[in-house]
């Protein structure tokens, strides 16, 4: 029972990870890409948290009533990771605003076309 639950957690993790990555790959809209990126990062939070959670355990507060504690470390780590994720998202969105100002679009293919136009033969890749 417990085993299948933990596997379930992993499956969710993988599903979130893959769908996030897929959005990054498949979407041309810069904001949607960032959303995909956030979803992708969320999967990591799950990856760390899920094994830290023990059934029937409680938060690691020393108390005579409990013998089983969850591992606090992953939670701490993920707090940091969430901060990093928020910062990344904020920066990404700020960049998109600037891109919109500069190019008048947030669709990557239109931007690429504009770039290539401006650059002429210079851009090869």
């Amino acid at each position: 029972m417990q085993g299948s639950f933990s596997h379930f957690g992993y499956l969710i993790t993988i599903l979130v990870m893959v769908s996030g990555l897929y959005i990054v790959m498949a979407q041309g809209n810069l904001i949607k890409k960032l959303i995909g990126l956030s979803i992708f990062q969320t999967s990591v939070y799950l990856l760390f948290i899920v094994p830290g959670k023990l059934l029937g355990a409680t938060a690691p507060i020393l108390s005579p009533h409990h013998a089983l504690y969850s591992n606090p470390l992953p939670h701490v780590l993920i707090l940091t990771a969430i901060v990093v994720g928020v910062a990344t998202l904020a920066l990404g969105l700020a960049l998109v605003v600037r891109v919109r100002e500069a190019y008048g679009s947030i669709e990557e293919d239109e931007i690429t076309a504009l770039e290539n136009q401006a650059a002429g033969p210079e851009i090869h890749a």
Partner: protein
Amino acid sequence: MTSLHGLVPHPALLLIAGALLLPLLRGRARSVAILALPALALAALWLLPDGVLWRVHWLGYPLTPLAVDRLSRLFASIFLLLAGIGGLFALRQESRLEIPAAYLYAGAAVGVTLAADLISVFLFWECMAIGSTLVLWSAGTPAAWTASRRYVGVHLAGGMLLFAGVAGQILGTGDTGFHVMRLDSPASWLILAGFLVNAGAPPLSAWLPDAYPEASWSGMVFLSAFTTKTAVYVLLRGFPGTELLIWIGLFMIFYGIVYALLENDMRRILAYSIVNQVGFMVTGIGIGSEMALNGAAAHAFTHILYKALLLMSAGAVLAATGRRKCSELGGLFHSMPVTTLCGIIGALAISAFPLTSGFVSKSLVSQAAADAQLQGVWLLLAAASAGVFLHAGIKFPWFVFFQKDSGLRPADPPASLRWAMLLLAFLCIALGIWPDPLYALLPYPVAYVPYTAAHVVTQLQLLLFSGLAFFVMLDHLRRTPTITLDFDWLWRVAGPALAGVARARVRAARARLARGLTGLGRRAGAWILRNRAPDGLLLRSWSSGSMSLWVMLVLMAYLALYYLG
């Protein structure tokens, strides 16, 4: 290092340092420095005793950048001597780059001869390539520029071979020392190949007549002296008695003769004859007896002198007339008597006429072939001697200074050039009459007398009758304004043509690939999304989307390989 020689600078580094400072000088100070530098370096060389004098550690290897023995002293001396005389000759050269470049080049060549470990040899070797390329550039013509690109390409390739060989040799034997090597490992073959590229051996011999004649009127004098003779030196030290070298040398000899016979450009004739003469030395090294090695070393010594003399006379003609083609020259003896005289002396010396320096050195090689009972080799060498007289000994002076009158009446060159030529002409004759000082410098004791009646008479017969053949066949030797294709055709025409074809192909292929990838992307997108977006989302986000796709692909590849592997 406590004795006097501890205070004596490394001759090569002295010359190189001087070369780097030369551009700062002007006027008389510059002229004095140009003449004094090689003299100082020569003095330093002769103040040094025999033996290993410098030991340093680099990259954890013991290096000996300064070690003197008879062989290295001989080559270093002639290099420095020629650097000085060449500097005198080039004193009036307008290009301010040329002499510093030439001294860098000469210094590096001296460095090779004084280095007793492979790494130092390699370092100086590359330095030499840079110096010689700069000499070539300083001619400043578009032709020199394009030739220098091909030149540097060949030498970098040669340097790479040598680099790989040196690395392999050190790793294989654990020894950095530069000793006699046997061809028993890939590394030693690579080293030999690297050396031979600089010697002008086939199939890369074409770089020499391609590049050297494009140098300035004085630049070619420097170029002729160092690169090929350094190669002879390292072959002497590293591969004496390697039989393969006999055949390579013979090929070079006849290649030089035949191509020179077909050539119209006087400086290209002389360039081919460098290959030809180096062929004699390489053959001598291949024979490998003491006398043969002496012969190769002595021939390198004398050859540097007379080839420089020939090139100076050709350079004087070029500087005065601006012409290089035999078909446009002729009758110059009217107004350039000194140049003509010096050209003839050089031509006689290269043909090994008795009483010239070529006679006393080339005889050593053919005598060694005879002593080793190599009849075929000996016969070919004899034929080659005749051939040298044919293509360089008569052809060069005849077509440039005599034959039909071209109507040109340029004056003899200015004093510094004349003195340089006369000095070399004197040395060519002096060593021919009195070879003992040269013989005393050779690596092994010499018990050979060149002036026996038999030898003089047979040599005269050989040369005079080849002269007869020349005049008899003169009609067939008329100069036409042509060049002869050589291996360099491969990289000058075939290579670019192939590259052009390849470029067109690549362009087409890229378009195809792009189309193909587009299609693939479409299909992949459609496959992932089932029936969504017929124009393929993966494509639309080609930039950052494709990057992430790549990330995924690489991750998948890693995972797959890990789990399968």
